[in-house]
């Protein structure tokens, strides 16, 4: 049913159920918001109406109404720009600021902060109400996320994300009244909770209350240490998002400029995690074939997302035998650099620093997992920085990113195929694995390499793929809530999948917690995904097993895929953890 109303004297017609906020946007009135965020494709809707900055005047109502949460009604007369509404909005921001550290200058969110921006837009010049300010401890317990509840505006976006989309349930509002704040159970440090470090809460937090653990200085230090050989690797999803930090359009592919800037920053080698992605496919496809041929447990679950790994360790400790044992690509890469490549160069692995540039904050945590390393004091990966942190380093080094000439990754760990690049988006890992598994199982060449059924933003994508006369049931899942749904079915014995790809972040790594902030704009994620597939199509080789450097690696060093040495270097094990 259509609803007729006027907003600021402009008549308009919108479908029933539209909010005033949405209706106003159709006539180019953008009412400011702070707590509200709706990401359709992710089924994420933070509609708690807590900030009250989106208030508007509705004729005939005693109070102002929050436009983000008020549906339009027939004949409604709305004023979005009355003095009364504007003053109330400004007062809300002032009240928020009256209980907020005024430390924008040194705040990690600074230029990305919605609160700071709003204060500027509304022309808040003084904070008329002053009084006591909350004092919370800053939680720096984890390797991934810093929580500074002092900067929290109680918008509950993190809570909605973690509880409803990811179903991890780390956060809840605590206490009441002025003391209310968003916290973990029993006020535990994040490191002692079931947090997966997917970083999705941080991706939607409008302020500096949730930020990544900053590792930039560690990288600078390594780069300036003459005794360290510093190797960097970059994940597939970084190259399709990094440009946004320098004002480029979302989805612009900046691989060459990224490599060039990394060289300028002084890295001794610039490798591509895509190489390790191809390697992962070799291992994972072999593991799958092995399970199929030896009656192993199915489905096989992919394991290249550390947040997902931590999720099942906490939530499904009884199912630890079904995920693949493959390490994630960047860990495989780290492992190879400190073994194979160190040997090639003839240097002590201890004097190599491996830096990963990732779209991900979970990988910061992952790199610190004690079982992932050559020995107790040599980790596979030493430092993980996010796409955003890399952008900052580039700015710090005063590099004109957009003017750089494209450069190529170093050999041999910079070689990759189209199969590897698509790891960066949901469905990519399985598509890549199918391209290889198909040929392994049938011995024939796969003509049509693109599996459309596995693409797109649906939370759970399913397909039945016939290979060598047998139907394989596969599923692609992104978002941990969707993963839970499927895992529960598996636990109950109600699922007959053979392989399942799971990525913690909605959209996969292109939507990772370390990517440039999307500020609620889903189009950005879609453009990044499109770029990933463009890059795949542009590659001469599109199947992992065709990667010549990979073939050589097995021949010269690893032996058989899924063989003994591969196991030692490229596979891992899981630990049951408490749900809290």
């Amino acid at each position, binding site marked *: 049913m259509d609803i007729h109303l006027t907003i600021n004297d402009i008549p308009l017609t919108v479908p029933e159920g539209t909010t005033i906020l949405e209706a106003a946007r159709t006539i180019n009135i953008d009412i400011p918001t702070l707590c509200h965020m709706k990401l359709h494709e992710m089924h994420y809707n933070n509609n*708690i*109406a*807590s*900030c*009250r*900055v989106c*208030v508007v005047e509705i004729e005939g109502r005693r*109070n*102002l109404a*929050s436009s983000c*949460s*008020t*549906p339009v009604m027939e004949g409604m007369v709305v004023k979005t720009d009355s003095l*009364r509404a504007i*003053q*109330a909005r400004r*007062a*809300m921001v002032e*009240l*928020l600021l*009256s*209980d907020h550290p005024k430390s924008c200058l040194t705040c990690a969110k600074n230029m990305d902060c919605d609160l700071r921006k709003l204060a500027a837009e509304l022309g808040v010049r003084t904070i*008329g*109400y*002053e*009084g*006591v300010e909350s004092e919370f401890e800053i939680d720096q317990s984890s390797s991934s996320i810093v929580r500074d509840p002092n900067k929290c*505006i*109680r918008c509950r976006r993190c809570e909605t994300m973690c509880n409803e989309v990811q179903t991890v349930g780390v956060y*809840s*509002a605590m*206490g*009441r*009244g*002025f*003391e*209310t704040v968003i916290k973990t159970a029993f006020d535990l440090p994040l490191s002692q909770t079931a947090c997966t470090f997917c970083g999705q809460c941080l991706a939607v937090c409008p302020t500096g209350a949730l930020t990544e653990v900053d590792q930039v200085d560690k990288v600078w230090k390594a780069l300036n240490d003459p005794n360290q050989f510093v190797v960097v690797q970059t994940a597939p999803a970084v190259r399709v998002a990094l440009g946004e930090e320098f004002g480029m359009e979302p989805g612009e592919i900046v691989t060459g400029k990224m490599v060039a800037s990394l060289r300028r920053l002084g890295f001794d080698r610039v490798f591509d995690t895509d190489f390790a992605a191809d390697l992962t496919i070799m291992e994972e496809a072999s593991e799958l074939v092995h399970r199929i041929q030896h009656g192993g447990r199915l489905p096989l679950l992919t394991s290249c997302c550390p947040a997902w790994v931590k999720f099942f360790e906490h939530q499904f400790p009884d199912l630890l035998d079904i995920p693949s044992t493959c390490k994630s690509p960047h860990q495989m890469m780290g492992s190879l650099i400190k073994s194979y490549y160190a040997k090639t160069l003839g240097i002590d692995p201890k004097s190599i620093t491996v830096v990963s540039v990732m779209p991900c904050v979970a990988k910061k945590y992952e790199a610190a997992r004690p079982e992932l390393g050559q020995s107790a004091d040599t980790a596979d990966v030493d430092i993980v920085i996010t796409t955003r942190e890399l952008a900052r380093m580039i700015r710090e080094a005063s590099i004109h990113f957009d003017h750089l000439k494209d450069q190529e990754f170093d050999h041999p760990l910079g070689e990759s195929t189209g199969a590897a690049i698509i790891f960066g988006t949901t469905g990519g890992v399985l598509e890549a694995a199918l391209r290889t598994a198909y040929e392994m199982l049938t011995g024939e060449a796969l003509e049509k390499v693109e599996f459309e059924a596995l693409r797109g933003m649906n939370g759970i994508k399913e397909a039945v793929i016939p290979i060598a006369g047998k139907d394989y049931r596969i599923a692609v899942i992104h978002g941990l809530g969707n993963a839970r749904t499927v895992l529960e079915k598996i636990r109950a014995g109600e699922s007959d999948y053979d392989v399942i790809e799971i990525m913690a972040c909605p959209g996969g790594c292109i939507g990772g917690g370390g990517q440039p902030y999307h500020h609620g704009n889903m189009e950005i994620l879609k453009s990044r995904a499109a770029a990933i597939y463009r890059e795949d199509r542009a590659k001469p080789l599109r199947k992992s097993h065709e990667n010549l450097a990979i073939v050589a690696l097995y021949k010269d060093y690893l032996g058989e895929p899924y063989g003994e040495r591969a196991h030692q270097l490229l596979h891992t094990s899981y630990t049951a953890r408490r749900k809290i």
Partner: protein
Amino acid sequence: MKLKDTEELNVLKAQSLKLIETRRAKEAVDTKNAPGLVRHILVCGGPGCHSSGSPRIAEVLEEELDRAGLADQIKVFEPGCFGFCEKGPMIQIHPDNVTYCEVSPEDVSTIVQEHLLEGKQVERLLYMDPNTKERFAANIPFYNNQLRIALRNVGYIAPENILEYIAADGYQALAKVLFHMTPLEVIDTLKVSGLRGRGGAGFPTGVKWEFTRRSEADQRYIICNADEGDPGAFMDRSVLEGDPHSVLEAMLIAGAAIGSSQGYIYVRAEYPAAIHRLKIAIDQAREYGLLGKQILGSDFDFDIELKYGAGAFVCGEETALIHSIEGLRGEPTVKPPFPAQKGLWGKPTCVNNVETLANIPPIILKGAEWFAKIGTEKSKGTKVFALAGKVNNVGLVEVPMGTTLREIIFGIGGGIKRHKTFKAAQTGGPSGGCIPTKYLDSPIDYESLMAIGSMMGSGGLIVLDEDDCMVEIAKFFLEFTMDESCGRCTACRVGTKRLHEILQKITEGRGTLEDLENLEKLCNIIKDTALCGLGQSAPNPILSTLKYFRDEYVAHIVDKTCPAGVCKSLLKYEITDKCVGCGRCAKQCPTRAISGSPKKRHVIDQERCLKCGACMEQCRVDGAIIRH
């Protein structure tokens, strides 16, 4: 025994009538001339009397009756609050129709001996009018001008016996609704009666029922809001404890009218006695087939479950209450959607207050017109007030809408305690305001209270006198709303804190006139912007005191004095030359701030003085210690 039809209900009623017959006599009956008559002694079991020892009185009474061999002829009951809590513990003897006040366990033997055995009233325990010194055995002036509809059975029937409720016309309205009225007729009756919600907002009950009925759904819910959160109001508690079946019956009627088969009573955990009585009532109603399947042989099914609050005022707000029942934090959500559209578990839900519900069976039985004749044009029927504070007769009063504050406070309430001067009446609890002397004669109804900046609210009526500081009162309420804010929205979470801080500043003598402006501005913005009723009404106590008692604020700010002598930081105690040097004050001072030699004028060391006032209380010499 499950009642299979109305016939069986009527038979049961006829059988049960004798249970309460003794109490129905309106005129005093001389028992000497009525041999074989069983007397009833009602010992008030209401919260006030209970706390001041009524259970012990009942116990002693039973013992004494036993000893006197009267146990067969005299029965003891503990019904709900009689209303006149000030004079508790109270007992009533029927059919003699004699009420005794402030009875202690020691008085029991006298009552047994003199009243019951010798037939003489115990004069000293009768109510005495403080002015005329006249004694009353019945027709105590406190009850004049009251009209009991919601409280009709409270203090009259034994709440733990369903038969007494049935004898008092109980469940007749339900039978009428089930067999002689259509749901629409029921809703129409309520609409015509003009009954409005007694929980605070005053929304027409019939209209709310109609909305809920109109929302398409496979299930609808009825919730009784028994979270009575207004600090200083206890009428809902009295109904729940004194007449729980009336609430159950009204919920059944609502179920039949709205098309619901499940009701919930959301009751404060702080009311264990009410919970206990409700449990008994529900069990009994189930036993008699008045809850459950095919009620009274009809095809109507309905059941009721108790849900407990856990100490959060905001859970009185409907959406918060619903979340609390769902096992969540009691945070309100934006309306629309209203509970009538999307409430508990997403289903249409009708939330009604206890007192609202208690009015419904009589309206059904006596008709909409009967009810609509009582009260004012827009506010029909009666309203129960919990009269408390600096008034002589603290208690529960039920008066027709339109009664003036003066009639309640100075008539029924007997005026101000200790002959002090009336300053204001606070109505509407933390959402309401303070009404000054000049409005004492305005008739109380929803609209007129709103018009003078207060609210009906749930019916708390706190009387304030010259010793109350209005800034302090505003601060008290702000502290309440600040503590009870759910913390969800900015306006209320931070706003009420800032309001409280400004008031704090003023009461400590650090306020400026600019603060006053800021206070007012922020009040208006919070009213305008807060998400729910709690925040929207939280500024009311400030705005109304600012409106009527601005000079008191200004005195705190400009003159740095608290006219009522309440705000400690602004007080100063001094010993004058009237001092005779007795030393009593010095002994009492907690900080040893007073020094002086015997028989000489003492002095107070202002640095050490805590302003506790203990010295002044101790001093026997008029004017020797002054406070300013």
